[in-house]
């Protein structure tokens, strides 16, 4: 079966340094997958390549078999990939509802049922009560949920979530996990970058491990957690384990 997202032999260099070196990975349909690895492993570079901010220096990226590398962030958004940033980037002068509405208006489905899609995304993210407040006034946990609500209002096939739980407390993290699961249950595949290993282990169907620009392991959470290369590269030296 064709994967939802196929990254094939992708490399990207910055000033001669390989941020990603010959990385291939398949994100299956209907999955929650996670991308883990130490700082500088290339996770953000990979996200930037998939969402179109960078072009790969070599290799191809395809969404349901159609190439999306090099077509730019605008058309990638239209094809059905949405991204939620770690550093939430709301439109500060707009209300919470207006923020989500932009996602609904310009997402892959175009302008149909904008009001309904907006309402639905707000409710899903638990933001309905704050719909008419300026986005600039939201606390961090709400901002992350707004980021996710705006992304899913675009009705993507694939949601890229960049450390959605970073800096959140336990209960806020639980809210995000529940929200991601609900998004997934509705048929949106999720690709996470996350540092919170406990969270990654709980939520992921599949984990990809990057280290120094290369993929060093992939598989279901239990297998990856036992993989000696992963333990060495990511979790620390074996002695510490």
């Amino acid at each position, binding site marked *: 079966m064709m994967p939802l997202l196929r990254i094939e032999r992708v490399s990207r260099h910055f000033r001669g340094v390989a941020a990603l070196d010959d990385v291939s990975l398949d994100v299956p349909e209907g999955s929650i997958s996670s991308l883990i690895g130490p700082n500088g492993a290339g996770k953000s570079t990979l996200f930037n390549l998939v969402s179109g901010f960078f072009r790969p220096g070599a290799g191809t990226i395809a969404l349901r078999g159609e190439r999306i590398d090099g077509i730019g962030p605008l058309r990638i958004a239209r094809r059905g990939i949405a*991204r939620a940033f770690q550093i939430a980037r709301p*439109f500060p*002068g707009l209300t919470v509802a*207006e923020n989500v509405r*932009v996602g609904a208006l310009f997402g892959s489905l175009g302008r149909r049922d904008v*009001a309904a899609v907006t309402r639905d995304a707000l409710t899903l993210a638990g933001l309905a009560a704050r719909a008419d407040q300026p986005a600039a006034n939201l606390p961090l946990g709400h901002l992350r949920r707004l980021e996710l609500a705006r992304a899913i209002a675009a009705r993507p096939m694939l949601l890229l979530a960049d450390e959605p739980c970073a800096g959140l407390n336990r209960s806020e993290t639980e809210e995000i996990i529940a929200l991601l699961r609900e998004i997934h249950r509705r048929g949106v595949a999720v690709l996470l970058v996350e540092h919170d290993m406990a969270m990654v282990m709980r939520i992921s169907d599949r984990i990809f491990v990057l280290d120094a620009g290369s993929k060093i392991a992939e598989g279901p959470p239990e297998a990856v957690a036992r993989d000696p290369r992963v333990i060495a590269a990511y979790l620390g030296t074996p002695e510490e384990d």
Partner: protein
Amino acid sequence: MSLWQEGIRRHRGWIAASLLGFVVLAFAPALLPPFYLRVGTLFLFSAALSLSWTLLGGFAGYWSFGHTAFVGLGAFTAALLEGALHLHPATLSLAVGAAAAALACTLLSGLLAWPILRLRGIYFAVAMLAVAQVLAELTSNVDAIKGALGIVLPRVVLPGVAQHVLYYRLFLVLLFAILAIAFAVRISRLGQGLVSLREDEDTARMLGVPTERYKIAMFVLSAALTGLLGAVYAHSLGYITTESVYRTDISLDMIVYCLLGGIGTLIGPIVGAALMTVVTQVVLGQLLGIHMFLTGALLVLLVLAAPAGLVGLLARRRQVPAA
């Protein structure tokens, strides 16, 4: 088109108020003495210009500091073309001149859009300032344009309508036509995309907003409407030179009125233009010696007291975005 229905329903109060405003202003000439009618004409022209400016500056956040470029280009396009064609009657000449003015500004802004709209913030503002300077210099120094010497425009006469009432009416119709266009833009998908790109252009693009296309569309629309106003303004003056239509104070007034009234809103430029026109022409007109000083001081005070404009000041408690 549920988006339109929703927008119209949500803003029906504003639509009703605008129609009422139009009717009141349409009957005002019968009651106003000539001096106040001139003040009224200046207000309508200024408000229409500010609204045209806000299509790009207020909606998309691209502040042009040289929009007088399009007033001047529109005025001289109309003057030169009408002088060459000698159309009769003069109303036809005005219509052709105004259409040509809008077209010339469409072409110029279309050509400028690609290089100039890549500049953000203050760089775009200064680039537009330079465009206005270059056009003004060309107009003065190229003999064929006759900017230094000046051009007389055909005198438009409508039977039964006094000259000063004619331009009041023309600018009134133009103001409300531009208001309707701006409203249609604001409630459309385009308008919501523009506002999101004003807030954060990169994020907007990532969400699927075609930011480049939208910016260019607004730049061209704003320029064309400004050019149209410039052509009618030229007729209202009767005789134009470079100095009378390429005026930095026109460029700045457009911005000031929007800031005063509330930037990004539709009512803001109208409120700002009304306030400043009345204050400068009526109140301070008596104090010619310190007129400019008082105008400046008033501006500083208003901006300090109401950074979101008068509309923002009034709407602050209600959390209702003024349309």
